[in-house]
């Protein structure tokens, strides 16, 4: 620079950065028009959007039909998507075949689920300690509310569970129980005690080596051969156990990766201070290992949540199952686009939510520069 001032050595002040472009102009320049290639790509993309977007908007919004009672009526009213179909099927989508007059129970459970999640997810929740007790008790409360049979609640056969309700039951149960189980398995496999190590390793390798579908078949058919005759526990319960075990094996390996990435010095420092094994794990090792494993843990959660759709192979109708059966309804025959877009949107919202939360958590737990 020709107009740069010169200073005495040792007297150079800190200067503000050069003011070229700041704010959004800077962003546009950097990301869209910075170079010739970028400019060409930007213009090309705008042209492509111009070609595609009107069609998409017309189909899904402007020409879509919201009120109709059959496919034929839909076709008369507009050329776009027939959302009336979703509306018609909405309650089956949400509740499956849960009895109409008892639907306040899943509704209440869902509200309680949200309340139970808040203290777990956000550590600045007021009265968090009591909230966490409630969260701990929630699985039992939820099971009682959903299935009933006690406290004068009418019993509901779990075969009537379906749609979003079934997906959330399996997904949330799997996620809730696979994390603690995965932590225990990871610590077991990482342990110095040979017996514990072997048991955990065999369990993890076996479960990981078998497709989930096989485990679900085992749950639905084979288990009754192994169990003593007369014992017949609920199919949904068996599926929940299998899904949880399956996810916990993956979880264990993700967490073991986190454990292994910690420097040995952390263990030594804790040992030298006289902390006991469980204190070391709880206070020093796991908080760091879990933080490192957050992306992998959430990855496993999302995978598990989407894998719940596999229960269709043993005759349970989750969101996707309900969708598939709806496609073959003669009154609404052939509306697969609408239905699958709807299912995809449902899964996307759930999974994207988990992903955003994990990013929030990573930022919050970031404590200065790593060594």
């Amino acid at each position, binding site marked *: 620079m020709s107009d740069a001032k010169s200073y005495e050595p040792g007297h150079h002040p800190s200067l503000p950065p050069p003011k070229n472009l700041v704010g959004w102009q800077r962003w546009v320049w950097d990301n869209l028009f910075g170079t010739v290639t970028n400019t060409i790509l930007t213009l090309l993309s705008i042209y492509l959007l111009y070609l595609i977007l009107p069609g998409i908007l017309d189909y899904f919004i402007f020409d879509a039909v919201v009120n109709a009672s059959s496919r034929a009526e839909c076709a008369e009213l507009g050329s776009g998507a027939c959302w009336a179909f979703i509306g018609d099927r909405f309650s089956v989508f949400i509740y499956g075949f849960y009895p109409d007059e008892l639907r306040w129970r899943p509704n209440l459970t869902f509200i309680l689920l949200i309340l139970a999640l808040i203290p777990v997810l956000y550590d600045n929740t007021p009265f968090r300690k009591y909230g966490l007790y409630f969260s701990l008790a929630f699985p039992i409360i939820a099971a009682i509310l959903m299935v009933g049979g006690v406290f004068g609640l009418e019993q509901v056969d779990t075969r009537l569970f379906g749609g979003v309700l079934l997906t959330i039951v399996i997904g949330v149960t799997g996620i809730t129980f696979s994390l603690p189980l995965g932590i225990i398995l990871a610590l077991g496999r990482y342990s110095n005690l040979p017996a514990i190590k072997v048991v955990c390793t065999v369990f993890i390798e076996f479960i990981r080596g078998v497709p989930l579908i096989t485990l679900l078949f085992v749950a639905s058919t084979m288990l009754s051969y192994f169990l003593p005759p007369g014992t017949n526990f609920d199919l949904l319960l068996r599926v929940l156990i299998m899904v949880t075990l399956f996810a916990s094996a993956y979880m264990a390996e993700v967490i073991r990766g986190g454990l292994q990435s910690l*420097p040995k*010095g*952390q263990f*030594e*420092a804790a*040992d*030298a*201070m*006289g*902390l*006991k094994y469980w*204190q070391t794990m709880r*206070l*020093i090792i796991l*908080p*760091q290992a879990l*933080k490192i494993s957050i992306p992998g843990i959430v990855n496993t959660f999302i995978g598990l949540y989407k894998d719940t759709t596999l229960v269709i192979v043993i005759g349970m109708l989750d969101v996707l199952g309900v969708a598939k059966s709806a496609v073959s309804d003669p009154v609404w025959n052939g509306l697969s686009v609408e239905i699958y877009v709807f299912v995809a949107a449902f899964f996307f919202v759930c999974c994207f939510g988990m992903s955003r939360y994990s990013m929030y958590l990573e930022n919050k*737990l970031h*404590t*200065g*520069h*790593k*060594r």
Partner: protein
Amino acid sequence: MAKPDANKKESEIAIEVLQMNKWYGEFHVLKNINLTVKRGERIVICGPSGSGKSTMIRCMNRLEEHQQGHIYVDGIELTNDLKNIDAIRREVGMVFQHFNLFPHLTVLENCTLAPIWVRKTPKREAEEIAMKYLERVKIPEQALKYPGQLSGGQQQRVAIARSLCMNPRIMLFDEPTSALDPEMISEVLDTMIDLASTGMTMLCVTHEMGFARKVADRVIFMDGGEIIEENKPEEFFTNPQSERTKLFLSQILGH
């Protein structure tokens, strides 16, 4: 072991190592180590890398296991008995080359963790003690920061304060200045000199010969897993006995 005898030992001898041997697989790392450390004594251990000096002091709080011989710390023998190990670790503080602070906890939490969980000190009291030692190492203003936000020298001083919070009777230093930038070495050494003036029993693996001259009661030279020579610092530096010691000193003091 007779009780009165043990009590007498405790009164004057901090650490006693008798004919201790250690192997890593086939490799004989420590060969027939005999060492007696009196209470309040300050010992500097030096020697070329791989000579077993770190391994030796790590045996004294059971971060490493010895296979033969006996180690008594504070009158308690180190065996596989976890009770003994825990008892000894409560009384022996250790400072590491790479600080080993807990990065997910603040400086204050690093210092109060062991007192709260091992000594069952109430939190308020543990924090007061921690602040006292953080002032002692001259960084009370950093108490609420995370280790990752501090310089290397500051981190090592926190590590020293963290050990002191357990109110140990013996302090082990494993190359405390080797991972530091040159301009930060002196702040850590000053802290250690200050600590030595309180009469703390200290065993220090270091190559800081200036520090050894200033505070050590004895300098121990190790090579090949053996204690080759031990002497008062003045004698050690001016009149080394063995050829290996002479060679080592000429290498580290030569320039």
